[in-house]
């Protein structure tokens, strides 16, 4: 069976599900950010697969470059916030950050 669009979509779906599971079950704040990166990567694989198979233009690849760049900016800010959390609570367990809970 020749490698077609569906193969890439299934790979990106599996990566998305792993990212979703990571975001749902991790208590380490950096682990949650890693799950978000997996989800963004799965979206990128989809963008580029559709750029190759759906239309011959470069639009999907341009979008993928924007996604990569925004993921870098978001990872930077997220990890700076995690460092702030570590300084305040002395742990990065997200269960410990419940100061606003009643």
């Amino acid at each position, binding site marked *: 069976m020749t490698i077609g669009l569906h193969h890439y979509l299934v790979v990106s779906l599996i*990566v998305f599900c792993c990212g979703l599971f990571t975001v749902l079950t991790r208590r380490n704040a950096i682990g949650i950010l890693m799950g978000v990166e997996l989800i963004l990567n799965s979206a990128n694989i989809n963008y580029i697969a559709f750029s190759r198979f759906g239309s011959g233009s470069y639009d999907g690849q341009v979008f993928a*470059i924007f996604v*990569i760049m925004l993921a870098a900016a978001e990872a930077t800010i997220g990890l700076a916030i995690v460092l702030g959390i570590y300084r305040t609570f002395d742990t990065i367990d997200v269960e410990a950050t419940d100061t606003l809970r009643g």
Partner: protein
Amino acid sequence: MIYAAFFYAVAGLTVISALGVAFSSNVVYSAFAMMGTFLGAAGLYVFLAADFVAGVQVLVYVGGILVLTLFAIMLTHQIQDVQVSNRSVGRFPAFVLTVLIGGGMAVALLRAPWLVKEEVATGPTTYGIGDSFLNQYLLPFELASVVLLTALVGAIVLSRKELRD
């Protein structure tokens, strides 16, 4: 045949690394498995004739984001990860939810009538992408530079030590 074998090898690397990120108990193991996922994704981009994006993926994700994540892990010293269950969603409900969502999406994507063009000319993409950035996508490109500048300044402000007078 050889093409399919190489594709399954790269796709297998991506999928197994993603499973490693999700199910590792140690966050450092997850970070290195994430490196495998990023490299596998770059390999998949090469299969899809996206050479420039594959290079950008390796440079920015592996060389930037992954190194930043490892630094943050090092600075926060949490090697023993207590990640087994969140209070709101435990591990088994999360697994069930993920399987439901993934199954729904799998049914949708395998049944949808995608318009597939098989005769797509592939070649080096750098010129075309650069052209797109400066002609059609000029405004998002400039806004992206502003976003990156803001993120840079914001990260520095968020992470510097408080000055006590």
